[in-house]
């Protein structure tokens, strides 16, 4: 890693550790090793959203050209969100692409991601299925997102009805995660989900 990238990450790391957000447990940043090119970030799901009380882990990779290019960030925790791939965790956020500026930091990135959880942009989707659900049937979207938060991000248990639907698919011999993904994309309609899984 080049001199500037490493030096900057070191300073940023110290800044984040001392910041108010860390004190309030909203964001955290951990080094994966002592090479400063890979970090794990964690953000708390914003209150009054389907992500409330969940903790979401992010993989942050620092390119050689940092800070002239943005860090490469994706969700490690599975999440149901129009701008985040429910399969890969890839994020669609302008500041991580063409809107990146060298004055931004890992702290601002984490805060922006937190803001993204609170205010999705379904018109610029990363996950088209989720975005469509968000626009066409918000209540199902909300229920699904909450369910995912409970299962993957340690959020509060939400809807037993969804759990039982997954159990019935599991009893048919499907993998739990696949069953959940299929049900989520098919508006929790067991028949359509089964059909989707079989094909």
């Amino acid at each position, binding site marked *: 890693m080049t*001199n*500037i990238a490493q*030096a*900057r990450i070191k*300073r*940023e790391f110290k*800044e984040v550790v001392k910041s108010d957000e860390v004190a309030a447990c909203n964001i955290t940043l951990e080094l994966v090793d002592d090479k400063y090119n890979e970090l794990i970030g964690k953000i708390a799901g914003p209150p009054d959203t389907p992500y409330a009380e969940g903790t979401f882990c992010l993989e942050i990779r620092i390119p050689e*050209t940092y*800070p*002239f*290019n943005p860090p490469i960030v994706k969700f490690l925790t599975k999440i149901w969100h129009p701008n985040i791939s429910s399969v890969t965790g890839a994020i669609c956020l302008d500041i991580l692409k063409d*809107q990146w*500026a*060298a*004055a*931004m*930091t890992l702290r601002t990135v984490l805060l922006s991601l937190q803001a993204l959880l609170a205010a999705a942009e379904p018109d610029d989707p990363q996950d088209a299925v989720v975005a469509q659900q968000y626009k066409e049937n918000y209540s199902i979207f909300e229920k699904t997102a909450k369910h995912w938060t409970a299962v993957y991000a340690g959020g509060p248990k939400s809807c037993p009805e969804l759990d039982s639907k997954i159990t019935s698919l599991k009893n048919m011999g499907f993998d739990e995660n696949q069953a959940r993904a299929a049900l989520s994309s098919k508006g929790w309609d067991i028949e359509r989900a089964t059909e989707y899984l079989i094909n």
Partner: protein
Amino acid sequence: MKVKIKSNWTAVASWRWIANDENCGICRMPFDGCCPDCKLPGDDCPLVWGQCSHCFHIHCIVKWLNSQQVHQLCPMCRQEWKFKE
């Protein structure tokens, strides 16, 4: 009693850049130090100002501008970057 100052006062001062921030927004090192690629502060690693009034180590902003293919924007405010005369 009268006190008279005779010549040759050895006075000690530290210099600093007149900037609106302490650290360079790009490398996040103190302005009064130098950018990560330099060894000596001051004349050898000067600051430059943009018309938007933001300033950076010259070596840092040049690297940033070179990395921008389309528009050259200030890393702080994202206005078009123009060096202040």
